[in-house]
């Protein structure tokens, strides 16, 4: 039985991930920028009695209706960003998309002031949502295998399918994805984006059945990260129907990795045999 580490999916989980991703941004002048926006609320909006930071006891929307449950700021941000994704193909990963998203929730466009101008949180939110979807998918597949309703895939096929499933989530946003990649590589975003990437790769290996407790743990993850990143870049340039060039590239890279690991274990067993031979010779000579 493979036991999953992540807590069960609750509304708070994603916002907790967002909080983790946005923790990196707490040092940024986020408070000051959002302070400015909320100091002069737009005329068509009912005045909000609370400050932008910290949990609010209730949130008054545009129609003067209060949200039913207590909603923390993280949960609110999570909802806005999810709604904003719909507008990304049109507006890119920008504050405009966030503003449009806020509008669909019945909030003021000033809500976009809660976030960075370059769309960092939106992109990180999207990445973490995709990773969560992937985890759920892999867990579901694992359950099917455990119940005997599906065959256990060989490792290369498993890795291929997992990476493909994850990359397919980019397809609706593929036009704007290069922009997102460049934002993810900004120095202040690197801790968050790296952490999301490593946890996704670790997840894939976990469900693939990796149980290594030695340096292999690192080699395997490094190799898979390389495969994922290069395939992602190929996908950006791919114009073939259904991205078939990308999936072929992925298949070849995974096959290369398998061949490399076979060679490595062959080298290792040869090395061990040689060492044993030498030890035997040494003992013989010393006798």
């Amino acid at each position, binding site marked *: 039985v493979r*036991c999953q580490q992540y807590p069960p999916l609750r509304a708070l989980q994603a916002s907790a991930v967002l909080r983790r991703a946005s923790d990196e941004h707490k040092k940024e002048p986020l408070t000051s920028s959002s302070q400015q926006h909320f100091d002069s609320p737009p005329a068509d909006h009912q005045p909000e009695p609370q400050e932008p930071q910290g949990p609010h006891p209730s949130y008054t929307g545009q129609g003067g209706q209060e949200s039913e449950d207590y909603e923390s700021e993280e949960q609110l941000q999570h909802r806005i960003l999810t709604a904003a994704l719909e507008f990304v193909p049109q507006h890119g990963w920008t504050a405009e998309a966030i503003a449009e998203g806020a509008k669909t929730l019945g909030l003021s466009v000033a809500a976009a002031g809660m976030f960075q101008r370059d769309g960092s949180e939106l992109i990180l939110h999207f990445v973490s949502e995709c990773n969560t979807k992937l985890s759920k998918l892999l867990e579901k597949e694992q359950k099917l295998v455990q119940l005997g309703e599906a065959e256990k895939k060989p490792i290369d096929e498993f890795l291929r399918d997992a990476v493909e499933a994850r990359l397919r989530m980019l397809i609706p946003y593929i036009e704007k994805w290069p922009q997102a990649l460049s934002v993810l590589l900004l120095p202040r975003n690197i801790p968050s984006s790296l952490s999301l990437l490593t946890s996704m790769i670790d997840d894939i290996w976990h469900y693939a059945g990796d149980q290594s407790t030695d340096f292999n*743990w690192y080699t395997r993850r490094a190799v898979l990260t390389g495969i994922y990143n290069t395939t992602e870049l190929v996908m950006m340039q791919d114009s073939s129907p259904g991205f078939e060039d990308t999936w072929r590239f992925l298949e070849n890279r995974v096959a290369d990795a398998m061949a490399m690991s076979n060679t490595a274990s062959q080298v290792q067993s040869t090395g061990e045999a040689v060492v044993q031979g030498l030890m035997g010779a040494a003992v013989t000579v010393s006798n």
Partner: protein
Amino acid sequence: PGAGASLRLCSMRVAQEGINKPVIDRIIRVDHAGEYGANRIYAGQMAVLGRSSVGPVIQQMWNQEKDHLKKFNELMVIYRVRPTVLLPFWNIAGFVLGAGSALLGKKGAMACTVAVEESISEHYNNQIRTLIEEDPEKYKELLQVIKQFRDDEQEHHDIGLEHDAEATPAYSVLKTAIQLGCKTAIFLSERI
């Protein structure tokens, strides 16, 4: 036969939901590194003193360390903990320390054992304190494991003393140096 194992793993999975992941991560990573290092130290000692009179004693202590390592390998998979990146380094350093101390003679090997086991016992005691402060109920199984291992290491320490470790020339210098090395190893393995 799988049902029992999966029941146990699933009860650990439920336990995982509420655990303090960073703390448990560190504990398991450093303990795994420690047992791995201890294994290599005894391997080094056996390579030199395997056919001497203390050979069987060292072999027996080594076997216990192998069991410890096996247990931590299991825990590492269950809790999905990353192993320390310094493992290859501890591989070599441990063997060199074991073989080096054994080249000083049987007493030297025993002195090394005393030093290392004393460090490890103290380290396990610290972890037990940490876990008890956190939540003794939640970490009951892990506490049991660590307590058992602490007792085993204490026993190895006593065996070392019984075999004239303290009679080694420059015993206190050797012991201090080795314990400093252990402290460094523990510090690094917790973090890297």
